[in-house]
């Protein structure tokens, strides 16, 4: 059976049935089932040591495994389930940002995501019956230049399924399904995990453990991790539905929806013509009550009219919390995705930042394990991704506070904002229905200069033969090494320095010239419109040191000792 068939939704949706936690429908999707294969440890009874063990094959763990596979690093990936998605349910992430899509393009699954998912760029926000404001991301210059669109909406399990197949294609990753980690011990320089499987339990040793097992991780306790957490009384209920007649492909948000007792509502399209309608409920609402099929249908009828015909694919009531670990790297364990931080869903800052966590650590692990970088490079994971985690917690908490203001002055101010927003443009910026995830900048990284720390968009340029290329092609070509882009003509001395840098350091050097400038004795690409230069945030004669995760390590002007220092700094080999 081909992969696209494996992941296609079932034609006949299964009858809805109550479960004791999250959903009343099993989703109506036929999800792939991955077989359990007894590993060597279980067959022979010997305890083997692995350089990298990843726990959790969700979107974060799979992204990490796929990125490692692409860089030629072997790893074991353990997952307690035998499928993608949470126990077969269809919820979790639906909205993937340009940065995530750029990462997926590098990993080789972007085309499948684009073919399956739904692109959108228009968002509209309503209060009562009025539109308060609207945006079109395609009109915003910051999104225009990348090969990837601002957003694609798609059910998370599709991406996970694509990643699994890509990992199998690349090889080098030992994917172990139905393997639940039940114990962990950190020793000097390695950890021991106990793994329960359908055929018994075994132990496995790891130099490095990556915990991507999600919000219920047992590793926090095993590692003594400390964290900051906050929980509110806001309650929501998702209904994923298919309509006979389709609403527009736009993100609609209501702050005060007349059809939901003046509480908030989200409306978003995903793959397979499935719409996610997310209703804000009364504070501390009873999840069982609000997710009963009768109640869900009542809400849908109030919103779309009594005659609307829809199939309910999935229903999930939820409460959210925010949580941020104080340190994402404890002993030999790295935390990423929901084990690093938990945020409310507003702004799509959960899954997308998990993908970025994985992309950040993958090249660093590869560089250190292959001897291209010093071990201190791994310390920068916490500095960079903890800053991002804190920022994402801060931003999503602000949205949550706007959507569920405390009674009293907080509500008065929100009413004032909504009223002013109808009349005055400035107040529309105060309406906060979610600030969409961005590629977080790194401002106090140990391996980025002050001039670095920003993401480089996947913009296009021309190869020497005039065919089009993009930043990811160059990164692919650098294959785990740093990419040094030098813009404009270079003196003979500078060319000599660049040649010796390329031969001595793990750096691939590419000269970027305008349309007509004469080629010099360096690998050359053409940037006639200056898009590549813009993406690197430099002007005129300059260089940009781009990391394998498409972040700038540093930028500068002259090819001199500062560049050499920046390279050593970026790889922690000073």
């Amino acid at each position, binding site marked *: 059976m081909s992969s696209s068939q494996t992941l296609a939704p079932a034609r006949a949706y299964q009858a809805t049935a109550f479960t004791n936690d999250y959903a009343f429908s099993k989703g109506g999707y036929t999800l792939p089932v991955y077989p359990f294969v007894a590993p060597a440890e279980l067959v022979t009874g010997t305890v083997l040591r692995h350089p990298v063990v990843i726990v959790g094959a969700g979107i974060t763990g799979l992204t990490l495994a796929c990125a490692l596979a692409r860089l030629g690093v072997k790893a074991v990936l353990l997952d307690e389930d035998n499928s993608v998605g949470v126990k077969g349910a269809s919820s979790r992430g639906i909205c993937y940002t340009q940065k995530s899509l750029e990462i997926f393009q590098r990993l080789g699954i972007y085309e499948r995501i684009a073919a399956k998912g739904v692109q959108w760029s228009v968002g509209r926000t309503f209060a009562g019956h009025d539109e308060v404001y609207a945006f079109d991301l395609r009109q915003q210059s910051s999104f225009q230049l990348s090969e990837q669109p601002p957003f694609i909406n798609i059910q998370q399990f599709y991406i996970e399924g694509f990643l699994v197949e890509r990992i199998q294609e690349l090889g080098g990753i030992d994917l172990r399904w139905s393997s639940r980690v039940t114990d962990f011990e950190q020793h000097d320089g390695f950890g021991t995990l106990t793994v329960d499987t359908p055929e018994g339990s075994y132990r496995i040793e790891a130099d490095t453990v990556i915990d991507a097992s999600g919000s219920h991780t047992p590793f926090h306790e095993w590692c003594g991790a400390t964290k900051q957490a906050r929980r509110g009384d806001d309650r929501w209920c998702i209904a994923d539905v298919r309509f006979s007649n389709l609403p527009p492909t736009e993100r609609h948000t209501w702050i005060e929806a007349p059809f939901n007792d003046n509480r908030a509502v989200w409306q978003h399209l995903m793959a397979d013509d499935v719409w996610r309608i997310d209703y804000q409920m009364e504070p501390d609402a009873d999840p069982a009550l609000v997710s009963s099929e009768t109640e869900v249908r009542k809400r849908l009828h109030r919103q779309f009219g009594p005659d609307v015909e829809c199939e309910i694919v999935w229903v999930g009531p939820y409460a959210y919390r925010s949580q941020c670990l104080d340190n994402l790297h404890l002993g030999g364990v790295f935390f990423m995705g929901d084990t690093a931080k938990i945020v409310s869903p507003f702004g799509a800052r959960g899954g997308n930042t998990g993908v970025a966590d994985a992309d950040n650590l993958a090249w660093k692990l590869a560089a250190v394990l292959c001897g291209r970088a010093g071990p201190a490079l791994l310390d920068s994971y916490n500095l960079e991704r903890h800053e991002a985690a804190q920022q994402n917690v801060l931003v999503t908490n602000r949205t949550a506070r706007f959507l569920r203001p405390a009674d009293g*002055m907080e509500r*008065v*101010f929100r*009413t004032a904002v909504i*009223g*002013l927003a109808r009349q*005055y443009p*400035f*107040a529309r910026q*105060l309406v906060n229905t979610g600030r969409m995830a961005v590629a977080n900048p790194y401002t106090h990284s140990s391996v980025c200069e002050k001039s670095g720390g920003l993401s480089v968009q996947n913009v296009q340029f021309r190869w020497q033969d005039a065919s089009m290329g993009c930043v990811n092609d160059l990164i692919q070509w650098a294959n785990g090494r740093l990419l040094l882009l030098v813009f404009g003509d270079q003196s003979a001395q500078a060319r000599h320095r660049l040649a010796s840098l390329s031969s001595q350091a793990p750096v691939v050097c590419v000269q970027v010239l305008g349309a007509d400038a004469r080629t010099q004795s360096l690998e050359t690409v053409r940037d006639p419109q200056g898009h590549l230069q813009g993406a690197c945030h430099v002007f005129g004669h300059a260089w940009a040191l781009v990391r394998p995760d498409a972040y700038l390590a540093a930028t500068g002007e002259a090819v001199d000792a500062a560049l050499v220092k920046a390279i050593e700094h970026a790889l922690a080999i000073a």
Partner: protein
Amino acid sequence: MRTTLHLQDADGFYEELLDAHHGLTQEQSQLFNARLILLLANQVGDARVLQQCLAAARTEQSVS
């Protein structure tokens, strides 16, 4: 934050501010004040000045 007089007509503005609340319920007054604060804050713009104003407004409360 400016602490010396910047208003063109101090007494006149004060009177207009009080008059604006005339005939409003407690609730309407609260909403009026909130709208006014947001409008004025956008005139100021400067984040540091706004922080200082917030701090200055708080101090009076803790003193009294």
